């Protein structure tokens, strides 16, 4: 079945094409059937392919070269640049299952959520196109095709954020996401150039039909030029900060919540934003060459996790809390990558995809049930009106704060343990570990705050903005089924990451790490392992911290023992800092946007005067020449014949001259 | 004179040249006969034919066109159509002549290719016939259309 791997991305593409061509004629039921059916087929084929792959013993994974894409020359001059080819290895297996699986659930959910929207077909075209692009991104067997997927998901993200393009804020958010990501893409592009220059190929791995040795077959090639060995990972990090919303480029992600909520769940929580994590995991052999790049990555991750968590504390919009929470969790993944624990990062990516998609869809269900109300201050007590939404959301909440036994518990603790282990070698990481531990507490606090405000206490949103009475109602079954499925996933997805010593084994690593090892095992000196006792102590610490955060939230928002407003007053310098989002947006506005505008206006005047002027001169010359030529075309055959004759004489003369 | 400059021509070549020149004698005879017939017909008809002149008959060309006057004017297309068809079919029919000449010699290595050559000519004649049918059906041969 591995030979049919190419169908996995092709089905969503066909769905997008079909709905694009006929979507407006065939009615909503057919549109939904095509969209969901194509992703379902893709998912089933993906599962099948992964199962057949697991029964195969292929160290680097299975490569399927479909056809030659870019090449030129012939014979000895032939240059092969890239082909359209797919690579299925443990890493892409996990990604395919996450993308297609969660994508399928969110397609189903969207049927109910978008039922009333105009542009229904357009929505599903974009969503299918996104699924296709993301599958290309994770399945590509070379950097160039991966970059095509990378850009396409960015495009889909832009289109979906601005789905309600008549709303100025949505259009602006789409633009912001796109432009911010361009900065990151620029880094990736330069890195690709450097890869081409140094390796002469884009292929990840060599093989018949492609390059003899791929980039990862010989990752040490650039060690001779230390600058490049550092530059390529750093440039890729720029891409990661854009796509995976890390400091300094994370500002676009909260604004991206202008898009429909299922989109936020799929693209801006579960899949696309993890593209950067995937990129580093895929290219980890290059990172292993450069400890400095890894440290940079870890620092960015830890700082992002902390900063985003603090901002999440003061948000009042349910989707924005989740958005900052996503940024923060992505920070954890990046921290894991920076600690060389690539498997841990991918593991957290997977569990996070479950519980964050769950919570976004839950939030969507809440918004749906409250007639587009997103403000936490006008919710409360929803558990009485929306029991299924509430209890599935609670599962997600417990998972993210790391309640023992749920998925987030295992993945987060794996990251913390690996960072700590790394700290035993490089003390800087101990500091990062401390920051991450603190963030765990903050995470527990803001997540509990959101849950308590929304689902517990009394309902506070009697009337909406237009003065109509609001009676919350539970969402339709088509939206609830994905919630339940995701809730189950949020509980059990972590069980493949249970350290084997807890289940009676002796190995320090878990099943998921063993599975991923061929693709992402660190090759440097990094494989720090811990005593079992140390691990248990670390786990205990993080659970305690999380419990503390959740308890504080309970005191503030559940029991009312402490007045949150008063507490905020006490810590007003901090709350103000958090509310202003650490002044990052303002910094960009003052330092970059206005300066860029100033430079741009200077360049514009330069362009107008000098370049435009010279262009005008050229245009006038060409136009003048064109008129002269036009005049020579008088329409008389005799004139034409004379021209030909003169030409013939010139050719004759030239043939003598060049003899 | 310059053409009398003596040159050394090998005897063999001289003989060859003579033979070539001899080969052209029939053509010379044919040319003479052609001229004789053309001139003879005109001369004889001048003597033998009866003369009842009209204005039209006295005009230089007896084909419906006034020979004097503007060349840039409309004229009946029929004459040119007929002339063109004549030229076309005439030229094509000339192809029969070399074919008949070599037909007898079509024998390669003991195999007779006469039937083959007949077939080839049938194809050629078929195309010619097709053109003729076309001309006919398009009524190009009818004077009073």
């Amino acid at each position, binding site marked *: 079945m591995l030979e049919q791997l190419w169908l996995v991305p092709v089905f969503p593409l066909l769905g997008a094409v079909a709905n694009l061509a006929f979507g407006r004629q065939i009615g909503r039921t057919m549109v939904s059937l095509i969209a969901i059916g194509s992703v379902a087929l893709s998912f089933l084929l993906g599962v099948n392919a992964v199962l057949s792959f697991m029964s195969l013993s292929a160290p680097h994974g299975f490569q399927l070269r479909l*056809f*030659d*894409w*870019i*090449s*030129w*020359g*012939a*014979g000895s*001059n032939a240059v092969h640049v890239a082909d*359209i080819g797919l690579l299925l290895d443990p890493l892409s297996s996990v990604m395919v299952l996450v993308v297609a699986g969660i994508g399928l659930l969110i397609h189903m959910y969207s049927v109910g959520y978008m039922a009333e929207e105009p542009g229904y077909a357009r929505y599903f075209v974009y969503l299918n196109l996104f699924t296709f692009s993301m599958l290309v991104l994770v399945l590509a067997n070379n950097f160039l095709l991966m970059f095509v997927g990378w850009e396409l998901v960015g495009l889909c993200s832009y289109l979906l954020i601005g789905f309600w393009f008549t709303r100025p804020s949505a259009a602006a958010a789409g633009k912001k996401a796109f432009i911010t990501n361009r900065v990151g893409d620029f880094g990736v592009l330069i890195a690709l150039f450097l890869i081409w220059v140094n390796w002469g190929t884009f292929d990840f791995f060599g093989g018949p039909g492609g390059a003899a040795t791929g980039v990862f077959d010989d990752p040490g090639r650039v060690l001779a030029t230390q600058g490049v060995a550092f530059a390529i990972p750093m440039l890729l990090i720029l891409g990661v900060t854009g796509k995976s919303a890390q400091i300094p480029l994370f500002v676009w992600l909260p604004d991206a919540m202008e898009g429909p909520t299922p989109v936020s769940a799929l693209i801006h929580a579960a899949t696309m934003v993890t593209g950067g994590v995937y990129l580093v995991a895929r290219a980890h052999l290059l990172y292993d060459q450069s400890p400095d790049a890894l440290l940079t990555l870890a620092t960015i991750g830890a700082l992002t996790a902390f900063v985003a968590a603090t901002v999440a504390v003061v948000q009042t919009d349910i989707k924005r809390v989740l958005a900052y929470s996503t940024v923060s969790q992505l920070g954890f993944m990046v921290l894991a990558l920076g600690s060389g624990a690539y498997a841990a990062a991918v593991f957290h990516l997977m569990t996070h995809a479950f519980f964050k998609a769950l919570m976004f869809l839950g939030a969507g269900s809440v918004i749906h049930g409250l007639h587009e109300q997103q403000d936490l201050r006008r919710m409360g007590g929803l558990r009485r009106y929306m029991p299924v939404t509430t209890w599935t959301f609670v599962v997600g909440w417990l998972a993210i704060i790391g309640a023992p036994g749920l998925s987030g518990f295992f993945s987060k603790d794996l990251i913390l343990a690996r960072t700590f282990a790394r700290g035993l070698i490089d003390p800087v990481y101990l500091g990062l570990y401390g920051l991450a531990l603190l963030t765990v507490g903050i995470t527990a606090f803001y997540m509990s705050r959101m849950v308590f405000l929304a689902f517990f206490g009394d309902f506070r949103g009697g009337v909406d903005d237009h003065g109509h009475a609001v009676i919350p109602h539970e969402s339709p079954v088509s939206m609830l089924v994905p919630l339940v499925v995701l809730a189950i996933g949020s509980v059990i997805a972590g069980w493949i990451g249970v350290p084997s010593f807890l289940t009676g084994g002796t190995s320090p690593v878990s099943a998921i790490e063993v599975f991923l090892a061929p693709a992402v095992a660190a090759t440097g000196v990094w494989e720090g392992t811990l005593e079992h006792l140390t691990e248990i102590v670390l786990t205990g610490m993080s659970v305690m911290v999380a419990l503390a955060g959740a308890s504080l939230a309970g005191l503030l928002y559940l029991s009312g023992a402490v007045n949150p407003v008063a507490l905020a007053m006490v810590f007003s310098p901090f709350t103000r800092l958090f509310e202003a989002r650490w002044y990052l947006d303002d910094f960009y506005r003052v330092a970059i946007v206005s300066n860029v505008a100033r430079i741009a206006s200077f360049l514009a005047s330069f362009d107008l005067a000098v370049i435009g002027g010279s262009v005008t001169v050229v*245009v006038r010359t*060409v*136009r003048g*020449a*064109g*008129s002269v*030529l*036009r005049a020579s*075309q008088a*329409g008389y*055959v005799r*004139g*034409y*014949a004379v*021209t*030909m004759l*003169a*030409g*013939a004489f*010139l*050719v*004759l003369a*030239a*043939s*003598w001259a*060049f*003899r | 004179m310059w053409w009398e400059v003596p040159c050394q021509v090998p005897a063999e070549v001289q003989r060859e040249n003579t033979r070539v020149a001899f080969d052209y004698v029939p053509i010379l005879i044919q040319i003479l006969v052609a001229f004789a017939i053309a001139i003879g017909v005109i001369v004889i008809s001048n003597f033998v034919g009866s003369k009842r002149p009209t204005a039209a008959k006295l005009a230089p060309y007896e084909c419906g066109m006034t020979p004097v006057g503007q060349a840039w004017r409309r004229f009946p297309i029929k004459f040119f159509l007929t002339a063109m068809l004549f030229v076309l079919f005439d030229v094509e029919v000339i192809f029969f002549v070399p074919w008949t000449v*070599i037909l007898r*010699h*079509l*024998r*390669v290595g003991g195999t007779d*290719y006469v039937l083959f050559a007949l077939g080839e000519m049938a194809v050629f004649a078929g*195309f010619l016939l*097709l053109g003729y*049918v*076309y001309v006919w*059906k*398009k009524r190009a041969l009818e004077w009073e259309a």
Partner: protein
Amino acid sequence: MMFVLPTLEWWTIAPVVILTLTGCLVLVVDLFRGDDASPEPLAWLTTGGLAIAIGTSVSLWGYEAQAAFSGMVVADNYTQYFTVLFLVIVGVTVLLSFDQLTKEDFHPGEFYSLIVFSAVGMVLMASAADLIMVFVGLELLSICLYILTGFSRRRLESEEASIKYLLLGAFASGFLLYGIALVYGSTGSTNLGCVARAINPASTFAMFGCGTGSVAGAATSGLLLAGVAMLVVGLGFKAAVVPFHMWAPDVYEGAPTAITAYMSVGAKAAAFAAIVRVFMIAFPTLSHDWSMILAILAAVTMIVGNTAAVSQQSIKRMLAYSSIAHAGYILVAVVAASQVGIASLLFYTVGYTVMNLGAFMVVILLGRRSEDHLLISDYAGLSRRHPVLAGLMALFMLSLAGIPPTVGFVGKFYIFTAAVQADYAWLAVIGLLSSVISVYYYLRVVYQMYMVDPVAGVEPVTPLRWVTVAAGVAGFAVVALGVFPHGVLALASASSTFIR
């Protein structure tokens, strides 16, 4: 008298035979049907014949090159590549002309048989292994085109164009024939392989069926150079290379639009098919002599074509000059004189066919009421009246300008790469600069369509379904070949193996 029967490998000219019979059949069927009968059966008959010929040609792909009929024609992949291209072009022309044919009292029998016979001429040009065959093919093509150009009998421009084309074409044929005679005088043969051997004893083009037809190394240089120069004139005329291009704008503008489309891609491709055969086979060792001449001609062609297009008001004239400029680009590939160059030429020919035919399809769809709506300013606001057509037209314009990710970009990239590899970097630079000029006039159409308000009183036309579909297919091909050029490029490489 000794008679040597030539080896008659009929299969080598199977497509030609099929096409000839199709043309005759169309003519006969036309004779025996009523005056008012629909021309549709004739169109189907023509298309059917073309389809069979295409099928035959495809089935001949991949065989070893075979010369036949005493070294008159050769059947190799190159022949089949061009045959299929030509016949597809003819098929599209049949589709494009149908509307005008029914509305303007064309004689369908003659129209279709002429177009099929012209296809025979093109196929013969691509398969010619002998200068005489090049001439026969070219004349067959040209004479049919002279008549087809004048088919819009009610329009004076059409007749004028036809006469102009005839007069200048005859003039050019004279040059070609004279060139062939001089080459024969110099080398003692007109077979391409024999000519090559007479010039350079080392050249081996046995596949061109030169038995003992010429004496090795016997060529005399003076006559030969003059002959080659004459061949350049004669073939350059057909391809509309400056300064033998003057006929093109007038003829393109006057001819029925479908025939203009046909000439701009079909006749041009056929001319280049013959140019490549003649110059790469017969005169490869002379390349120092002729490649510089061709390089200069290519440069002048690109510059003049692109510059003159800038000031045109009529879209057909603009496309005429644009096709002159593209002849320049293709000539650059000939100058490169390498297998890579010829492969890129073959690829570019396909790409140019797709995008130029696509542009003409849109022109035809919009100019349905006879020959109106042919000014560039008539395209104002088209994006609002016909968003799909405007989008397609914009795509074709961008592709003609050579902007990625279209086939126009990839094609130019390959051609200029080949030129640089052949040490003609200056030619590539001129090509790039002149194609910058071309962006101006191509984008002018896009500008009119998207940024200018529509002229009041222009009503939307009802697009013809099949032409619209064809334009859509062309648009798809423009992008598909631009992103995945490798399939066609592999075919092109396999077709250019006869060049060492």
